[in-house]
């Protein structure tokens, strides 16, 4: 018997604000400008500050390149999971199922895979089956070339032949639980997110979409939520350098009628 259900009840799923921390050899890489930090290079202390400020989630991008990488990443994830009471994603150098498995058991809520998934798309299926789709974030770096959008690798330097929209659709059908889409044309410009393209992608997607690349001021976050209706927006330097403070950003979003926590 079909149970009785109270329709419609829209609820208040909040738009998420996600600071991204680059980590190398267990230390945050980009400079930070927080007055109240004892150790600006300690990712755990920085993460704790962000969680106190009202960040909804955190992303750690581990760019450690040494052969000790897996060990230092696991130590980082464990330290974060011990101290932080909000969800976090770890990305960088995850190439096989075993990498993801150790991170899950170290306390990561999600892992993000980028070039490894492009090179071996079946990895998405394997990870979704092994750990559930909610664990698998597929990060996509996109760049505009001759009127089309192409997936890029190696931090946007290496163009592939794959059109971004096709790849995202494939990633979703293989079991991605979420897409983190970085516009390399906008990244670092502080001129705002690529709202038009994000809107175009979001309209076809039935899993959450995180917008990344281009955040420079609070209005850019208002714009990306109003114009593309993405589920979350990610930024790094504007938060790290204190150019945007999360409580003030949330207040601005709230005043513009956007649901935030």
């Amino acid at each position, binding site marked *: 018997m079909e*149970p*009785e*259900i*109270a*329709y*419609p*009840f*829209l*609820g*208040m*799923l*909040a738009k*998420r604000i996600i600071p991204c921390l680059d980590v190398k050899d267990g230390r945050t890489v980009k400079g930070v400008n927080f007055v109240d930090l004892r150790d600006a290079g300690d990712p755990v202390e920085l993460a704790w500050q962000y*969680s106190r400020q009202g960040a*909804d989630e955190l992303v750690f991008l581990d760019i450690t390149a040494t052969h000790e990488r897996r060990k230092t990443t696991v130590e980082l994830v*464990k330290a974060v*999971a*011990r*101290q932080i*009471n*909000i*969800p976090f994603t770890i990305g960088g150098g995850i190439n096989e199922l075993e990498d993801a498995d150790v991170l*899950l*058991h*170290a*306390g990561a*809520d999600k892992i993000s895979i980028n070039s490894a998934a492009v090179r071996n798309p079946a990895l998405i299926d394997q990870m979704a089956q092994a*750990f*559930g*789709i*909610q664990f698998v974030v597929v990060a996509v770096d996109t760049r505009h070339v001759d009127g089309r959008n192409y997936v890029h690798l190696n931090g946007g330097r290496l163009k592939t032949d794959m059109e971004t929209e096709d790849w995202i659709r494939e990633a979703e059908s293989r079991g991605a*639980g*979420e897409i983190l889409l970085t516009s390399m044309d906008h990244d670092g410009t502080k001129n705002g997110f690529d709202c038009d393209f994000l809107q175009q992608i979001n309209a076809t*997607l*039935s*899993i*959450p979409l995180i917008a990344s690349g281009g955040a420079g001021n609070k209005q850019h976050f208002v714009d990306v939520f109003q114009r593309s209706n993405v*589920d*979350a927006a990610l930024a790094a330097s504007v938060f790290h350098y204190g150019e945007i403070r999360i409580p003030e950003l949330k207040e601005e979003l709230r005043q513009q009628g956007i649901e935030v*926590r």
Partner: protein
Amino acid sequence: MTGIVNYGAGNIFSLTAALTRLGIAYGMVNNAAELGAYDRIIIPGVGHAGAAMRKLRESGLADSIASITKPVLGICVGMQLLTSYSEEGDSELLGIVPLQTLHFERRVTLKVPHMGWNKVYHQNNSPIFDNIEKDTYFYFVHSYFIEYNDTFTSAYTGYGLKFSAAMQDRNFYGVQFHPEKSGEAGEKLLLNFSKLY
């Protein structure tokens, strides 16, 4: 002391880390005989409800849970296990709370999983929500939900439809969200549960 049912359904590092931070003593329950050693029991769980139910049966704990008279808290899939049935894998569950676990995808046009912070409205004076505001955000990640019920729903949330964010039936409690990932409100809820006898 709080016992965590250890039946291999997902990672519990974040949960034990939260309990440690909060100074809540805990131990692992590996079999039915160990249930008696604890004042209250947490059933964690992520992933597939049908698979979790199979693991719980294999652990030999499934038949003992219904007869526990101490407080029991199911988290996420651990909450769903307490219901009678899940559409996930067409699975018969413990049937301790007479509710069903249903799929969002067949009923709403919103994105699935329901992932992120959503407002939780508690009702019916469930003690795990003591000193928590009526409309507090908690962190959710799930594709299946437990139907709303006036009697057993102790907190509700909306995602295209109204569903049970938390439930209570006698000494059996469940929360669909992850208190260990829900900031200070989640920590308060875990502390509230740790004071129940």
